[in-house]
């Protein structure tokens, strides 16, 4: 009996070992463990044994079955592993073949710069406001303390439609429009297209974009202006950026200033990028002129404010090191693809 079991065991294990596929293995499984399989038959044959022999025999057959079962499972796992390996080998691809891209489009550098400006200022509590591009001279000039006949009207070579209506030469009229609404305090920025009669060259365009900023409240000071714009410069050009304020003149602010930032290429040491100065002029700003506040119906003894205007193209040119403004309006796909 024992001999027979031993033989079956050896036979079974050897057949299992010789199996190369799951199908062959299945045959073996059926041959031993199936309804008519050898081991099943042994179990069935137990009834012919003397009752006292049955437990021992049962135990032995069970052991045999367990052994064969686990040998089959192991073999099955090994074959699966082998099959997988074979498949992986066959299915190997060339990962260096070209990607299947969705060919997503690209943003314009000016829009990218604007998005960043808007992110910075909305984060500081500024609302984004828009105004008309074709504007009354009254808003573009008069309400900004530039009365008729004032030479400052010539400084911004303005395109006129009629005596009274023009292409706005700055985004500042949105200041007046916002203040006139009378809702205080004000913290707003106003991006938009402006126009000046400049011929197209590497640094000029007859149409470009500005972002105007305005804060009006009680107790707004020049130091607030400086702090706000320094914060903005650090956000835009990096935390090491320093700012320099120089006196300047704008009719609608007093005191007025221009802000330079330390050159972000040479960090202020002076290089070709900043023409050796270490500083790059970025924007004009100042405290809202009391005449402007009053013309817009705000009591200049109670309220003060600051305003600033940034050229968007200038920021884009600096930030992305674009050397010719014309590129911004050509819309060459190879240019746009870089943003």
């Amino acid at each position, binding site marked *: 009996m024992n001999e027979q079991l031993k033989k079956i065991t050896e036979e079974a294990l050897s057949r299992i070992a010789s199996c190369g596929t799951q199908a062959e293995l299945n045959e073996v499984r059926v041959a031993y463990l199936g309804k008519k399989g050898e081991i099943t038959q042994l179990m069935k044959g137990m009834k012919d044994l003397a009752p006292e022999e049955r437990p021992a025999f049962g135990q032995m057959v069970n052991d045999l079955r367990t052994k064969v079962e686990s040998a089959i499972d192991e073999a099955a796992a090994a074959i699966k592993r082998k099959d997988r390996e074979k498949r992986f080998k066959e299915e190997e691809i060339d990962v260096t073949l070209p990607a299947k891209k969705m060919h997503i489009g690209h943003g*314009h550098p000016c829009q990218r710069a604007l998005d960043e400006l808007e992110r910075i200022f909305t984060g500081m509590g500024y609302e984004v406001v828009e105004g008309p591009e*074709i504007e009354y001279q009254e808003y573009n000039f008069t309400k900004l303390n530039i009365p008729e006949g004032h030479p400052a009207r010539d400084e911004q070579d303005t395109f006129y439609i009629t005596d009274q209506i023009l292409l706005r030469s700055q985004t500042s009229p949105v200041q007046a429009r916002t203040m006139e609404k009378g809702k205080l305090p004000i913290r707003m920025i106003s991006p938009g297209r402006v126009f000046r009669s400049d011929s197209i060259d590497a640094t000029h365009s007859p149409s470009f974009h500005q972002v105007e900023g305005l804060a009006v409240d009680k107790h707004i000071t020049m130091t607030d202006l400086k702090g706000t714009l320094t914060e903005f410069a650090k956000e835009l050009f990096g935390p090491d950026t320093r700012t320099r304020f120089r006196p300047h003149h704008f009719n609608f602010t007093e005191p007025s200033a221009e802000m330079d930032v330390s050159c972000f290429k040479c960090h202020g040491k002076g290089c070709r990028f900043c023409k050796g100065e270490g500083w790059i002029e970025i924007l004009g700003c100042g405290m809202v002129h009391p005449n402007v506040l009053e013309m817009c119906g705000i009591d200049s003894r109670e309220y003060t404010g600051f305003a600033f205007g940034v050229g968007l193209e200038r920021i884009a040119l600096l930030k992305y090191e674009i050397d010719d403004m014309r590129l911004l309006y050509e*819309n060459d796909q190879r240019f746009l693809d870089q943003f």
Partner: protein
Amino acid sequence: MNTPLSWIKDYVPGLSCTPQEYSDRMTLSGTKVESYEELSKNLEKIVVGKVLSVEKHPDADKLTICQVDVGDHTVQIVTGAPNIHVGDSGMMVPVVLSGGKVAGGHDDGPRPEDGIRIKAGKLRGVESDGMMCSIEELGSDRNAYRDAPESGIYIFGEEMINEYDLKPGDDAIKALGMDDVVFDYEITSNRVDCYSVIGIAREAAATFDQKFVMPNIKSSGNSEDAHDYIKVRVEDPDLCPRYIARVVKNIRFAPSPEWLQKRLRNSGIRPINNLVDITNFVMEEFGQPMHAYDYDDLAGHEIVVKCAKDGDSFVTLDGQERKLDGRTLMINDAEKPVGIAGIMGGQNSMITDHVHTVLFEAANFNGVNIRRSAQKIGMRTDASSIFEKGLDPENALLAINRACELVEELQCGEVVGGMVDVYVGAEPQKRIAFEPERINALLGLDVSVEEMKKTFSKLELGFDESTNEVLVPSFRRDLECTADLAEEVLRFYGYDKIEDTLPVGESTNGRYPFKLLVDQAVREVAEFSGFSHAFTYAFESPKAFDKLLIPADSELRKAIVISNPLGEDFSIMRTQTLNAMMTALSLNYNRRNKDVMLYDMANIYLAKELPLKELPDEREQLTLGAYGQYADFYVMKGVVEEIFERLGLRDKIHYDKDCDRPYLHPGRKADVVYDGKVFGFLGEVHPDVSESYGFKEGVRVYVAVLDMPMLTELASFDRIYENIIKYPANIRDISMLVPKELPVGKLEDVIEEKGGHILDEYHLFDIYEGEQVAEGHKSVAYNLSFRAKDRTLTNEEVDAVMEKIIAGLRELGAELRS
């Protein structure tokens, strides 16, 4: 404004600083230095030499050998200069000693950054030790040094030798006035006083805490009285608050002395002769334009200041005939106009070489009127650009007296005593209440009253202790209110010294208006769909309409016209965006860029009436344009639908192919209709149009335009979740043969209508025409999915609906295929 530092130092004798310090501090106190140039840059070891002898070079016809006394020794220099001749001697010339440097070559070409080092050497075998210099080699030109030869060595003139007592070995750079630094300032328009050496000197004195010394103008004139020579009548004192006339007789033209030439030269002005130089000098020094008339040309020896008549014309001294209007102020004699006030004199009273007696005019004109007239006439001159800023009437008196003093000093003529001064009278003293706490509140500083007063006093602002008012001198036209005083305080406190704070007080929400949120969403869809953001111009040429085949009577042609455009190409405000898009695509096409896809989000400008009385309707348009392998009609349609979906507009979009879009391919165009309204259009660009933008026949260009205000009005980002239906769908396929010209949209209308509420979704999965399909027909197949929210649909229910759909389709002429 270009001004040499030496001139500033004449009035601020205590000023001592490097050019860089000067530049930095002036910039920070408000007089912005754009750049400065050290005239002696790259000029080293250059001395006055005296040519002792000139001999012929033995081996070269064009060369001479000179022995030159350079002070402590004599050097031998070989030169090829055409103005040095064999046998010459005694000339005094600038000599660069060997080891020294000059700024450039002998012609007027570009100069090397680091100059040119001069070494001793041999020229055709003859030792040459150093070099005699031309004016160009010294970094200047004949405009500045009028006595320099057209070609050859600069030879010091008699006057210069005498004036500076030049000896061999002296510093030639100093003698030539090149030991100077010229600063270029950006003067802001409010500081008309700083368009002058005096004004800048005042600022420099205040900046460096030095004393400002006004030039002491000596009285001039003989014992005669100008009133006996000239009568002046001002008919329009509002436009001419002050007119001063002085007379100079026995004019003797001569070159100006070297000191004056040097001043002008270093200010970038070419010296001409004593009379012209004097007016230019005074213009620089006091910022007061003056004019000189030939007294003998003035009929009646009379000046009448009055406006021209509409339609008058006048020949200015540049020989141009100018059209005038009734508001142009003119200077007349007893009979005729002799000059346009503050803009330009007339040819008929111009100073010529034969002048005997000159009338000097120093006047004050109304700036607004001068600006208006200059614009009207189309002639902006140096004088008008100063006058239009509004000058100090007191300045005219200083300037004319300074000029007459110089006339006497230069012996340019005999000044007649006295002057005719027609003046409305000095302006009242301007006063500004001194409110130091408001100044500090505005600045966010705590500057003491003493410090503020100190600043005012160094700016020559007076103070009235009794009324606590700041008294503004007449030359400070810009100071009006407390904010102006605050700026003066801040300028000298230091813009760079104030700290950074952030506004305190009521907090505000940073936010975007809804329109911009819609814009952002649309930009995202466009970019994710493959389109890149283009920026285009808002103005364009009226020719665009023809290129786009827009009919002559189209509303689109009612464009707003710019009255002073940059040229025809930029002369109208666009009423459509296709031209800009086609222009951008065409640029890409010409540069051989493949597969270009662009979008533009910008306004069109629609006038309510023309000429414009009120602001036009500015409507933002989304414009998509594409050519190349990714572009076709249905791609454009896809983006349009994605945009509607992104904006929460989920109803069915209709496409109207019978739209009037002359710029589109007649068989490939559609209006985009939503909620019964036309939101825009899309299609393939008409081949005639793409051809006129330079596209080759057969290149297909696609565009789509959507009106953003209409989208924004309906857009919503609010979403309400609907349960995902857990009951299974009953799916049916339907295949049919339909007439070729029947749009599938009609089939879909039937499918939707008859499918009713249990029709969950459907999609076209096959469309085919050609072989195996009957002539004039196409085969179309749909996949329909039916589903109910609350139960599993029975086949019978779906069958019933399918029958209705099929019946409907048959009515359209569809033959169902099994």
